[in-house]
């Protein structure tokens, strides 16, 4: 087996005196969709921030693409090939859709390549093409989620980290977003996503981890997790049936 694309190794994270992660270790294999599940305040977003260099772990290491990226500044980490779809999207609301897309390509300087990717991404998200001149902040929640994903794609990342991409969307849009995540993955981009909605996330993922108060409580291939009675009790309730 080749080396994993992303690997967290015995991470301990703190906010001041409060410890959020306890020896957290996980692996994201290249080409897969891996989801990190967990209830509120279990430390999911903090894992994302650790990967992106927004939160420095107290101890432990983050490996990406064979290199140690622990403690590197965020822009360096992004340049090394990671894209981000942040929690609550965090678009640049006063900028146009097009400007947001181009911000996604900020680390690149190959003009023709960027133009080609803009076309490719807009092919994936046709709704955005009609709205290129609209201010991002004035779009609907679902459209904003698409723009956030499109923006991340514009950097041509090897890995995209997504923090709750389905949050606050109507069921119809949730399905659409999940399909798009699969489409992105089929183009060869590895996905590491955080979700609260376990059944939906496991439905498209290859592998899953369950985080409970900062520790990995459960892990396995998505199909196995979906069948696991413990996860059905803890997270899925009757909804999974």
């Amino acid at each position, binding site marked *: 087996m080749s080396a994993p694309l992303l690997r967290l190794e015995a991470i301990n994270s703190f906010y001041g005196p409060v410890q959020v992660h306890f020896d957290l270790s996980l692996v994201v294999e290249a080409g897969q969709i891996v989801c990190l599940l967990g209830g509120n305040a279990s430390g999911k977003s903090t894992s994302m921030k650790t990967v992106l260099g927004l939160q420095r772990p107290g101890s432990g290491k983050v490996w990406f693409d064979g290199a140690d990226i622990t403690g590197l500044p965020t822009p360096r980490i992004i340049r090394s090939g990671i894209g981000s779809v*942040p929690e609550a999207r965090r678009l*640049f609301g006063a900028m146009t859709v097009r400007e947001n897309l181009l911000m996604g390509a*900020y*680390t690149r300087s190959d003009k023709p390549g960027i133009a080609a990717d803009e076309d490719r991404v807009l092919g994936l998200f046709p709704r955005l093409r009609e709205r290129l001149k609209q201010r991002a902040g004035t779009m609907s929640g679902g459209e904003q989620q698409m723009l956030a994903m499109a923006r991340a794609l514009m*950097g041509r990342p090897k890995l995209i980290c997504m923090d709750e991409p389905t949050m606050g969307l109507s069921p119809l849009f949730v399905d659409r977003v999940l399909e798009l995540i699969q489409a992105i993955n089929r183009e060869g981009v590895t996905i590491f996503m955080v979700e609260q909605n376990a059944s939906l996330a496991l439905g498209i993922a290859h592998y899953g981890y369950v985080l409970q108060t900062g520790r990995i409580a459960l892990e396995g291939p998505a199909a196995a997790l979906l069948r696991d009675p413990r996860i059905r009790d803890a997270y899925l309730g009757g909804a999974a049936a």
Partner: protein
Amino acid sequence: MLGAWFDYTVNGFVIGNIYALLAVGLALIYGVANLVNFAHGSVYVVGAYVGWAAITYLGTPLPVTLLCVVVVCALVGVGIERLGLRPLHGASRIAPLLATIGIALVLDQVVQLIFSPDPRAVPMQVPDWRITLGGGTIGALDLLIAGIGLTSAAVLYGFLRFTKLGWAVRATAQDSDAAKQMGVDTDRVNLVVFAIASALSGISGVLVGMYYNQINPAMSFEATLKGIVALIIGGLGNVPGAIGGSLILGLTESYGIALFGTSYRNLFAFVLLIAMLVWRPNGLFAARRSLPPEPMTGTFIARSRPLKVPSWAVAVVILLAALLPLLDAPYLLQIGANSLMYAMLALSLTLVAGTVGQVSLGHAALLAIGGYASGLLALDAGWPVAVAIPAAGLITAALGTLLVFPAFRLTGHYVSIATLGIGEIVSLVILNWTGLTRGAIGLGGIPPLEVFGYDLGSVQGTYWLCLVVLVLLALLQVRLLNSHLGRSWRAIRDDSVAARSYGVSGDRYKALAFGYGGFAAGISGAITAHAYSYINHETFGATISILALTMVILGGLGNVVGAVLGATLLIALPEAFRFLAEYRILIYGIVLLLLIRFRPQGLMGTV
């Protein structure tokens, strides 16, 4: 007549352009760094002097002069960001604001040491012709300033709109974490913004020098203030708004001068500021009326564990202080009395800024109110001094609270800006209300200190009176802090969101804090007035407000013992090193910067 109005309009427009060069930079900086840069006017002064030096010593033609100014000021801006502000990443949010104040003190003093405080004339570098238009005239310099203003705006627009770095600036201003996640090096963006803003500020400085044909180091404070007023009119962080706000401010001032005379000019500016803060805190051009919640990252004031001083030690110190007059060292006593008067002011400020978290930058205005109230009661109403002083305390409590009342719903930076503006308004009202205050002449012949026949006008008398009053005020403050009231005050500071849910009662607690603070500061001002026997509208200026803030931070915000210690140290130490007298303000600035960087909790710790 019409011609005169045309001239006033041209003048207002030109001044507006000068303000715009200042305010645009402030808006850019607020955007990316969430910071009102109080050192902005100091960079403007640096620009004015660099221009003057280039013309005087090197004989540079205008374009080269401007280039020198741009380069030097951009470097100063880079230095401010890199050395002064970046190390404060992750500190409490008041820290960078205070750091810019410290930087302003240092820059102003350095300029003054290099170029002397005397005014200089900037040689005019444009031809001295004027064209006559409809009864009024426009000069070449007017056109130059307007041209530079418009060109800068156009270049800035192009930069923000069409360059990659410009996008990065806008993205960082909107959401710096998200910008980082796009690969933007936000530290570099900050640096670039400070460079651009400082270059524009410097250009503004030279142009002002040419326009008024005079520059001096003291003009930095007013420039900072005017920039901030224009910024608030346009809306914090709104770049086009800042330009609009500047033009409005320039025209308002110009027409104000036309209608009421020059001495009302600044009054107009600051009344406009307070009106904006009260009614349109988001600026004229924003759709939203309510204030955006300030970003909740980190507390506003650094928390720490205060040092406990045993009460017997305090008692011993008070006893020793009471015995000081027996040494028969009048000079030492004079310094002691001064320290004690400042300590009363520091008590007041440490409560308002530390305990309640309302970082006031206009606290010296309370001294002025107290001083004038007591002086006028004694002089004009013939009240005995011993009655006039406490009465002045009460008047200051009432007036101070009333003045700040409209600003109660403001938080964070807005409080500092509002109190700064209110402080300026007080001193301008004193200057202009000639019938009551004698105006610019000041208040002379104020009767000396006496209590029911006992003459306390001697140094010993003043000292003892100050000591007694200070001890009483400090004891009262300690009692208040340990009561339910003290806990409510701290609750307002620590969680303004929760405190906002107190609604009306939150205002009541703030009013009580400003009331007590006004009382203590008013007494201090009153005693000072009687001890000096002469005061005027400049006796209690903005420098004293900043000095008081430095004392309070040195002692530890909210800390009663710390406030007294901070005042004593900052008044007494420069006396001990008298050969440093020239560098006094420089030392205050450096002390402030070092404290913020290395010991934000002060000597005794915040409470």
